[in-house]
């Protein structure tokens, strides 16, 4: 047997957790600085921004107009019931809104942060009772269902609340990513460092945005997430979202199936590591796995600059979704990087030993979690830079 060719397999960088901690404390970016990385991150985030815009609109549409609808058959049509729209839906010429729902359910299931705490509070239960009482008087099906399954409708309302909150979160992120792409094109963002700073600034600016959600039933308005709950963008939605989708994820419907009975998944939900930062970009059998759905959606909206580069790499169009996923992971490390920077307890340049220790603990906690992630995407691939430099030169 001949020795395995080095060309066939690439050894990933896999930086150690200590290296990640050092980068965080030194104010360096997690993702290595390179022109290639910049374009991958910016362009993939631009297509992600377009997709998030559609996800966000649909989630808000679902939460507002399909509220307490136990059979929401047309929930993906955004209210457009024209034959052409239905036909495009049937032949799958559409955005995979299932992925957005999957993220919503991951958030609902992992249930961290202020939103989840509010969904379990007494005031939420009181408003549920009020809403259900008002709704069941007009809806015989729900009037029949509610006494039989008393937890069903409150759970639907929790789902709708999470759906709306995620829709609001993505509204902000979509605009942020599209602005980032515009800034890069204007020349105001020219490096990975500036990308992280741009995203951090966007997150900080939106941090205190209130998250509210109201519905109208038979001309009477109700609050599901009232302003008095005091839910805010960053701590109550963004952080739980990162926790649920980037980090923990779900051990099913992914690239690899795990068998809980064989104890292949951790007992503690908090130890889960199946999120986007840990996802294997290679689809392993099976159709419709959620990361593939997102890659397919982004593929439909790829900027031509990035698409042209993908065509020049690997198998061209043949493995384009894998390449999108790899770029997407780089981009998500930038977003995570911005979130970590934004949540450092003290300024990095601080001289006080206690503050430095607090910062180190914060960085160490993150580094320990990220150390197991797909950090092999963080380093520059030498052979990938050359064609991209040419592609950039060709465009200049």
């Amino acid at each position, binding site marked *: 047997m001949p020795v*395995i060719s080095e060309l*066939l*397999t*690439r050894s*990933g960088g896999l930086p150690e957790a200590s290296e990640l901690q050092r980068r965080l404390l030194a104010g360096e970016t997690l993702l290595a600085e390179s022109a290639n990385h910049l374009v991958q991150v910016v362009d993939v985030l631009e297509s992600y921004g377009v997709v998030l815009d559609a996800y966000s609109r649909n989630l808000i549409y679902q939460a507002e107009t399909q509220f307490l609808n136990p059979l929401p058959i047309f929930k993906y049509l955004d209210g457009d019931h024209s034959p052409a729209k239905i036909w495009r839906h049937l032949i799958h010429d559409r955005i995979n809104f299932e992925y957005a729902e999957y993220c919503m359910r991951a958030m609902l299931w992992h249930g961290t942060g202020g939103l989840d705490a509010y969904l379990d509070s007494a005031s939420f239960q009181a408003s549920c009772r009020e809403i259900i009482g008002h709704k069941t008087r007009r809806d015989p099906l729900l009037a029949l269902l509610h006494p039989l399954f008393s937890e069903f409708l409150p759970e639907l309302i929790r789902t709708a609340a999470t759906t709306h909150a995620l829709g609001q979160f993505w509204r902000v992120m979509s605009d942020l990513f599209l602005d980032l792409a515009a800034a890069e094109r204007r020349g105001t963002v020219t490096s990975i460092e500036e990308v992280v700073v741009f995203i951090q600034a966007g997150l900080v600016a939106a941090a205190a945005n209130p998250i509210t959600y109201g519905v109208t039933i038979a001309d009477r308005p109700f609050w599901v997430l009232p302003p008095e709950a005091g839910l805010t963008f960053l701590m109550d939605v963004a952080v739980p979202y990162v926790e649920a989708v980037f980090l923990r994820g779900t051990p099913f419907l992914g690239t690899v199936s795990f068998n809980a009975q064989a104890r292949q998944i951790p007992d503690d939900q908090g130890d889960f590591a199946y999120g986007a930062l840990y996802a294997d970009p*290679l*689809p392993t*059998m099976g159709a419709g796995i959620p990361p593939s759905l997102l890659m397919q959606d982004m593929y439909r909206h790829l900027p031509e600059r990035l698409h042209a580069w993908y065509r020049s790499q*690997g198998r061209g169009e043949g493995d384009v*979704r894998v390449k999108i996923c790899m770029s997407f992971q780089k981009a998500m490390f930038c977003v995570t990087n911005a979130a970590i920077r934004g949540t450092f307890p003290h300024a990095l340049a601080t001289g006080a030993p206690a503050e430095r220790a607090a910062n180190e603990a914060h960085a160490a906690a993150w580094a320990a979690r990220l150390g197991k992630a797909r950090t092999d995407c963080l380093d520059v691939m030498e052979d990938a830079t050359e064609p991209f430099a040419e592609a950039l030169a060709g465009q200049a």
Partner: protein
Amino acid sequence: MLSLLLLLPLVGFLLLLLWPGKPAPGLMRQVALVVLSLQVVWSVVVLLAFDPSRGGMQLSESLPWIPGLGLTYSLGVDGLSLPLVLINGALSLVAVICTRDISQRPRIYFALVLLISAAVNGAFLAQNLLLFLLFYELELIPLWLLISVWGGAGKAFAATKFLIFTAVSGILILAAFLALAVLRGSVDFSFLPVDGEQLALGSQLVLLAMLLVGFGIKIPLVPFHSWLPDAHTQASTPVSVLLAGVLLKLGTYGLLRFGLGLFPEAWAVMAPWLAIWAAISVLYGSLAAIVQRDMKRMVAYSSVGHMGSILLAAAAATPVSLLGAEFQMVSHGLISALLFLLVGIVYRKTGTRDLDVLRGLLNPEKGLPFTGTLMILGVMASAGMPGMAGFISEFLVFRGSVATFPAATLLCMVGSGLTAVYFLLLVNRVFFGRLAITPVNDPLRHSRLDVRLEPVAPRETIPATGLALAVVGLGLVPALLGHLSESTTTAMARGASLLQALLAGGVG
């Protein structure tokens, strides 16, 4: 008419050798392609001229060559040889199609492939024992060269082993034929069955034993099989296709034609032992395949197993079992050629055939998904999945043999079931799971995440796709082949059973 089946590839062989100047390898390949395409077309013409309802030899041609030696140039075709002639043309064509980028001595390479094709056709069509032997030996040297010049790293050892084994095979067969002539007291080398009046049963048994060992090496049967895995491992993909698809069939053809055909009395006596031998061969081949780590060796051992069942069918010598033997020869030719082609593609793309190294090649984006799909189809056919050629042949073999040799047939069925075991092991390891090309003891295997395999171009899978279609086609419409061979195999079985009845009567 039949002579053209020999002349076409022979003329091609000479044309390539005598081509003036230094022609490009692509041109050589095209010449071989044209010649073999003509051969396939002419085989089809013979097929159309053939009357399947008649049992005996047809389209015979005869020309005295060296009458003093009893050597006549006499050709004929029947339902036993015609399918093999067809498959020889088709697989030779496939072998040339899948030969790409040959840099080393392309002229000789393609010439030798044509020579083998001519010799194999000659052996299948010969109606004279010496003529058969001439062609049987004629394919030996080209194949030895194909392995020893265009083979892998250990080609010298494998080619020499192949040469020694098959030379012994040829010597034994020649000795048997000569002894037959001497004992019969005539230099008539035609295919006339020997009966007890011409030759005592003891002498018949000795001669038959020589033939059995001679052809047993070629088939190969355990314990004469050890040359085959080595030869396959070192041979290039097209040569493996020829070797498994066509050349092994010379052994089983010889067994049926000369073992059963020349010595029906002795055959009837030895049949129970042959059935046991078949069961041992099938079980050994299958069990050995399970422990292989090299995909090609695994397919080679599976050949040993599947060819063993032809011996079982020949031993039973019922109309159904002999038809099953014919089916098994054709379907094994198609399926093993398909599997070797696919293993060749995997090897070309990954540089390895090691089951401990390859994982998840079915990956739709970065693996070899279509190759993997065809591989799954191929192993399903080999394991005898209904709807494909393997099922028909194994069903006929077992159905035809179970009444005569129930124990041996049951053991062979176990061996056939083991096919599913080793091929599922292969498919599970190599094609399912997360794509990876790393040895399990590689300390960096968890960080070697990005695998870069070249995609398989559609044209590279055309021959394999054609074979896969043939495998499914034969499985869905087995009547095509059955119609062609049934009269011949029934006549052969009738002859055998008549003699068995006579023997039984004589003893009783």
